[in-house]
């Protein structure tokens, strides 16, 4: 399937939606730091892949779909299909997330943090994209 870039979609989200994402992102990041400080890096590291923002993001997709197509039964169904598609993409992204973590684990002790994060982010995107190609075929 063709990938489309739509910058005007940024305007479709409200300030409340951006604020919720900022707040949850900040809370999870601060929380992961607190947990690592209290229980050590082995437990703290688990929360670096915590899906805290996902329930809020899914609810925001539902709200946007309702705004676009009213709160009818077909609007509800559209929201469920969209959240399902978003989660399927996130499943592909989680393969990349695993690669990101593995790259950081293996090369951070040897190389600089900035180099490590650039390589790991490229690894995340590359594997996520490959995963998306596979998932997109099954999704249609």
């Amino acid at each position, binding site marked *: 399937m063709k990938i*489309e870039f739509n910058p005007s979609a940024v305007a479709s989200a409200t300030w409340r939606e951006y604020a919720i994402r900022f707040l949850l992102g*900040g809370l999870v990041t601060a929380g992961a730091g607190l947990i690592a400080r209290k229980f050590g890096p082995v*437990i703290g*590291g688990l929360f670096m892949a915590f899906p805290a923002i996902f329930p809020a993001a899914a*609810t925001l997709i539902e709200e946007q779909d309702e705004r676009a197509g009213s709160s009818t039964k077909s609007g509800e169904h559209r929201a469920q299909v969209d*959240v399902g598609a978003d*989660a399927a*993409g996130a499943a592909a992204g989680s393969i990349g997330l695993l690669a990101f973590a593995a790259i950081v684990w293996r090369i951070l002790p040897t190389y600089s943090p900035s180099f490590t994060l650039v390589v790991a982010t490229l690894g995340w*995107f590359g594997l996520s994209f490959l995963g998306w190609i596979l998932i997109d075929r099954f999704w249609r």
Partner: protein
Amino acid sequence: MRELLLRFIIGGCVVSSFATLGLLFKPKTFAGLFGAAPSVALATLGLSVSANGRVFAATEARSMMAGAVAFFAYVSMVTWLTGRENRNILAVTSSGILLWLSSAFGLWYIFLR
């Protein structure tokens, strides 16, 4: 306290930036990739290295692998229940957090303890 505030601000910026990237793309399956971006890790690792050193941050990353596998289980369940079974979105995405917690700590118990 200052470090926590810094984590909050950096984390909020990085997570919402990836969420905004997800808004810009179609189809929804591609946009979903950004929902699994390593946003918390990108916001945290630099601070973790400067505060505790590289070995500490690398150990966090090793555990993050278990968290990523649990994340895969979580989003797979959400895909199945919302996309195919038409269940309530908030109920599925919120209760799925229990699946993430049990998967992540199960993997920790088996491989990382």
